[in-house]
């Protein structure tokens, strides 16, 4: 982004709800502030962005100030002089051989202080950190092409600082490798600007850094599923022509890109990404190919496998139906532009990617693009069991046959257990993730920022209910979240989401049942809002509770008891 574009972006009046982001840096924030504001404005178009800065040369002081400011996020741009002013080029007199040991000692203490403050701030909102991006000054005694002992000790301190913070759930670091691509190291420092105004960055560097920090603040939900073609995509060759032994994915056959792609899909599958196959092929031949012991993506990691001579768009439709997720959460990869166009026409929201068979560099770089689409900070327990639970849902659906929902007999024999928890755990990323990813069973489609979520957890008038489900077909994990406030006679629910994997099991009824009993209230109010995608929740209220929901409505205990179907789950409350 050019500076003039950023200035024009931030000068436009916005009426949306404020999004306040702190910017902590030891230098004059100047254009970094402008670019961060502009990048955030692009990512949060319905919000009114406010950037809150601190004192020059005092990152620690700025962090202390942010704690009482009700910010939605804090971005921290560290540079070497924040560890010790003698590592900058604006302060004179500190470059002495006798000072080196003292610089190392001071930086260690400063990093320790910053570590403590950053963790404290992360209890209230997410924190985005950029480690020093500029070259160290020639303060150490070794020649420039030699990694000297003191410099390595300093970098070691920084590595230790990162490793202790990286496990914190709301602390996110700018990826240095990606920053190097966007902003070459040798072009970042602007000495003239540093001396003139205290702003040390060249403008393109400030732009690149701000773009990455803004994305980390946004932390968008990742895609959920990938549907891949087989011939000349998962492997090289057309299996129907050359046979299962004729397809390849290795260096010897000049088809390494396919091997890397297989390996990457296996990795995604292990991370909880759903991987499906849509291929025009003979199922028996494909089945044989998947029996090859050297295939890096096993058949067990793929579900469903849609192999037929029918259209790809229809195959994709069936896969989306089994996964029960929106097309916008899915990527389709194929080597044929025609097939991609067909799928895109039928499913405009799906992201279609051409597998670049004959371009090794491009094929490799595409993996980085996929990583960006599917990346996440942590793998949750739900991620680990997602594929198994989708398979189990398919099994139970098959047992249920074509009936809408499951039969009384099936529900009764499912041996289902629901475990409720009212524990407010700030580190429970699953509850936060469900609220921000779920569309179909969602009370109002409202998303929350991490800062707002943490604030809500700290509010003693508010409750949080999570529900975990399992039955004889398997474990679904934590699948429902309800949040709201209470008084002596009523509950008021403003957030209710349930994973689509848990539909048709009467879990929603059991959740309300639990709330009426647990809180001893006579009424529950709902802050309902119809959205383009929350039809399943609306149907629940319409069908089960015989009520077309209004934006604000209540259900009484008696009313609910009259319409609630028989519930078969064993229930208990987690300790």
């Amino acid at each position: 982004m050019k500076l003039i574009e950023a200035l024009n972006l931030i000068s436009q009046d916005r009426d949306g709800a404020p999004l306040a982001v702190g910017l902590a840096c030891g230098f004059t924030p100047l254009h970094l502030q402008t670019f961060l504001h502009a990048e955030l404005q692009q990512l949060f178009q319905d919000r009114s962005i406010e950037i809150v800065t601190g004192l020059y040369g005092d990152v620690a002081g700025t962090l202390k100030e942010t704690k009482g400011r009700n910010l939605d996020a804090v971005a921290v741009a560290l540079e070497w002089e924040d560890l010790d002013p003698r590592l900058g080029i604006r302060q004179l007199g500190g470059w002495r051989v006798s000072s080196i040991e003292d610089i190392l000692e001071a930086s260690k203490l400063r990093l320790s202080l910053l570590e403590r403050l950053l963790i404290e701030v992360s209890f209230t909102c997410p924190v985005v950190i950029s480690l020093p991006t500029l070259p160290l000054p020639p303060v150490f005694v070794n020649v420039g092409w030699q990694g000297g002992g003191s410099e390595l000790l300093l970098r070691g301190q920084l590595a230790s600082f990162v490793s202790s913070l990286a496990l914190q759930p709301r602390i996110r670091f700018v990826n240095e490798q990606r920053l190097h691509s966007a902003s070459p190291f040798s072009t970042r420092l602007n000495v003239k600007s540093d001396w003139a105004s205290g702003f040390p960055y060249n403008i393109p560097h400030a732009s690149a850094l701000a773009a990455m920090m803004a994305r980390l603040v946004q932390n968008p939900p990742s895609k959920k599923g990938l549907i891949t073609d087989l011939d000349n995509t998962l492997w090289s060759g057309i299996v129907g022509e050359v046979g299962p032994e004729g397809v390849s994915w290795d260096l010897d056959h000049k088809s390494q890109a396919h091997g890397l792609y297989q390996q990457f899909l296996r990795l995604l599958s292990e991370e909880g990404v759903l991987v499906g196959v849509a291929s025009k092929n003979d199922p028996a031949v494909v089945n044989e190919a998947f029996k090859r012991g050297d295939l890096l993506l096993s058949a067990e990691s793929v579900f469903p496998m849609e192999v037929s001579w029918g259209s790809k768009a229809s195959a994709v439709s069936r896969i989306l139906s089994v996964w029960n997720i929106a097309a916008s959460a899915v990527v389709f990869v194929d080597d044929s532009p025609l097939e991609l166009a067909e799928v895109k026409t039928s499913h405009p929201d799906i992201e279609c990617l051409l597998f670049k068979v004959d371009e090794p560099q491009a094929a490799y770089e595409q993996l980085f693009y996929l990583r960006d689409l599917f990346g996440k900070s942590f793998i949750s327990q739900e991620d680990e069991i997602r594929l198994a639970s989708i398979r189990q849902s398919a099994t139970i659906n098959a047992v249920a046959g074509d009936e809408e929902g499951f039969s009384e007999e099936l529900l009764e024999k499912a041996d289902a257990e629901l475990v409720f928890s009212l524990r407010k755990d700030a580190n429970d990323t699953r509850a936060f993730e469900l609220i921000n990813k779920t569309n179909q069973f969602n009370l109002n489609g409202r998303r929350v920022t991490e800062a707002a979520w943490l604030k809500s957890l700290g509010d003693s008038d508010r409750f949080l209910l999570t529900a975990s489900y399992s039955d004889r077909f398997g474990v679904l994990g934590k699948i429902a979240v309800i949040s709201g406030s209470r008084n002596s006679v009523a509950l008021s629910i403003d957030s209710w989401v349930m994973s689509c994997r848990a539909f048709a099991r009467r879990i929603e009824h059991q959740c309300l049942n639990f709330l009426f009993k647990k809180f001893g209230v006579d009424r529950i109010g709902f802050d309902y809002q119809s959205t383009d995608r929350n039809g399943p929740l609306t149907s629940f209220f319409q069908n089960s509770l015989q009520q077309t929901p209004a934006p604000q409505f209540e259900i009484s205990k008696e009313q609910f008891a009259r319409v609630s179907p028989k519930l078969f789950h064993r229930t208990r409350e987690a300790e």
Partner: protein
Amino acid sequence: MSEAVNLPRLMKCFAAVFPNLSEESIQLATPTTVPNWDSLASITLINVIEEEFAIEIDPEDIEHLVSFEKVLNYVSTKKPALQ
């Protein structure tokens, strides 16, 4: 490049840094007539102009660039250096 060509480009730069100024006010702008024209705005304005015209402005020249008209004369005499 001529002042006629540079005028609208420079107007864009001033409008980005001082978004509340009308077109007429921009052409009469000086640090006295524009309250927001402080040292940080001056740095931003210089950087925007450097970017727009692909020139590098010498630090010693900056203190003389104290009106729209003077900046227009200045950029019209500079040759692009950064392209």
